[in-house]
């Protein structure tokens, strides 16, 4: 393959994944009537705003509940990320360093829960949260997913790579179980813990089904679920507003990701494949 065609192929590949996002970004700077006016025929302005405007962002901010819902998403992000990182760290430590009967079986059981997709288990999960009296509450949203098999796996693998001699040295120096974790192991798996935290933080922006089911108060709802209510594919949707609001929703995730991504090493992103 010559250089030109290989470049073209790469460019096409990138375009397939980026163009839709860019298109949505462009749509957020448009006026709705302008968008519909240019929709009939193919021209430059079918895709790009002819008169860029921030009007949609103004209207999005003015949506009565959006700020609260956005706050819910971000707060849930922090709670989920921190809760998952802490519970995975503790469990990973126990599963890697402690000897107890059924350790491997427990680890396998945890991994096995990966095979239970939310889509499939939604009703029974709903009943459990209802029985616990947590429907329509923030904790009802958060608690079911704080245990993360992926998090436990990630942290356990990272701890496995820390030499046991380090633990032994620390405990000979008088460290108890907690101090061993805090002083000998944690400093060596910081990358994995941050990866775990970040992954589960960003993961909250994936959420749709569970909040749709378990949260029926508007002001307790997550932003992305509320915005989905603005879409009515069979009638004319105000896409400018949808994308302005969606972009406002994504911005916090991007900021946090940009701040923390330098702690990630590429190895952590790819070890899942081995």
């Amino acid at each position, binding site marked *: 393959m010559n250089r030109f065609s290989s470049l073209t192929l*790469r460019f096409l*590949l990138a375009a397939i*994944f*980026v163009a*839709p996002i860019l*298109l*949505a970004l462009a749509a957020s700077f448009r006026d709705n009537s302008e*968008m519909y006016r240019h*929709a009939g*025929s*193919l021209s430059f302005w*079918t*895709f790009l705003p002819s008169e860029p405007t921030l009007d949609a962002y103004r209207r999005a901010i003015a949506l009565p509940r959006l700020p609260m819902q956005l706050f819910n998403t971000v707060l849930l992000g922090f709670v989920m990320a921190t809760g998952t990182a802490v*519970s995975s760290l*503790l*469990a990973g*430590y*126990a*599963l890697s360093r*402690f000897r*107890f*009967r059924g350790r491997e079986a*427990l680890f396998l*059981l945890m991994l096995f*829960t*990966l*095979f*239970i*997709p939310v*889509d*499939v*288990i*939604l*009703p*029974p999960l709903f009943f*459990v949260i*209802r029985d616990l009296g947590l429907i329509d509450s923030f904790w009802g949203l958060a608690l*079911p997913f704080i*245990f993360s098999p992926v998090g436990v796996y990630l942290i356990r693998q990272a701890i496995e790579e820390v030499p046991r001699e380090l633990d032994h040295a620390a405990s000979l120096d008088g460290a108890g*179980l907690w101090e061993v974790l805090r002083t000998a192991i944690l400093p060596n798996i910081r990358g994995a813990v941050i990866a775990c935290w970040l992954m589960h933080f*960003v993961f909250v*922006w*994936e959420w*749709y*089904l569970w909040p749709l*089911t378990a949260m029926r108060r508007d002001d307790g709802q997550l932003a*992305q679920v509320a*915005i*989905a209510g603005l*879409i009515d*594919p*069979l009638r*004319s*949707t105000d896409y400018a507003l949808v994308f302005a609001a969606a972009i406002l*929703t994504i911005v916090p*995730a991007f900021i946090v*990701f940009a701040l923390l991504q330098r702690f990630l090493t590429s190895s952590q992103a790819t070890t*899942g*494949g*081995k």
Partner: protein
Amino acid sequence: MPHPTAASGRDISRRNRSAAFLEGWGPALVFLCPALVMLCLFKLWPIAEAIHTSTGTFDPGGQRIDTAGFDNFGFALSDSRFQWGLWLSLAAAIVKVPVQLALGLAAALMLRANTGGNALVRAMVISPMFFGLPVTTFVFAYLFDANVGAINAILSGIGLPRVAWLSTEAPAQLLVLGLSVWRDVGVTMLVFLAGLSAIPPQIAAAARLDGAGPLALFFTITLPLLARSFQFAVVLATLASFQILVPVLMLTKGGPTGATDLASFQIYETAFSYFDLGTASSMSLLLLVGLIVVIALELRWLAVKWTYE
């Protein structure tokens, strides 16, 4: 006190046995506690709840009024709509998995060299994951909107008829599956990239010296050595193919005329629109078992018999 020693002896042996069974759990339990509680409450209990609920009948308020045995399962399985839903879910996997694997492998092969340009393109292929499923669904809704969508604009621009994507059967299915593949192909690519980088370069070099041309190299060396990546990617893609409820719920609502009436969508509707808890739970269990059977079969077919070292 008759036979005090015997009694205490039995006592001790029982205590020993349970002590042996629980050996080492003491300190471990402290650290395992948060994860273990959550695991039991929100992963295992729902399964138990599903099993319990599936064997009962409920009034519309959600109160259990009677025991139904396996009637709910029988009802679900004999319902032609649920049969269609199960078939549709399986068909989604049958289409999505090979397409996504082929595309992911092609992307990985194309971008395997570690150059700056490739890293950039890789990041772009993965990027849909960072926007979250709801937002990417908005994007596709806009892209494929019958009136203002870019796809229809392009179609009409090049002289093809516009398509009512969400109200025609095959296009609606294509849209939902396409979104799913588009979103997940990056993961598959990452899995294959990791697999490719795990192949020792000397093995490819040896094959080239042994007379393998590009095609033979790919089919006799690269592809077999990616077996583990294949296994992993297939399982991930299968799992994901059972999680395409979001676009269905947001855009197609199972329609048009049942074209996207997936089993998971029916479960959602049965539970939260019809409040038929018993049937919904039995449907959940059936789908879950189906998923596990599919994955078990895949793992069996794709079993790898060799290791590097």
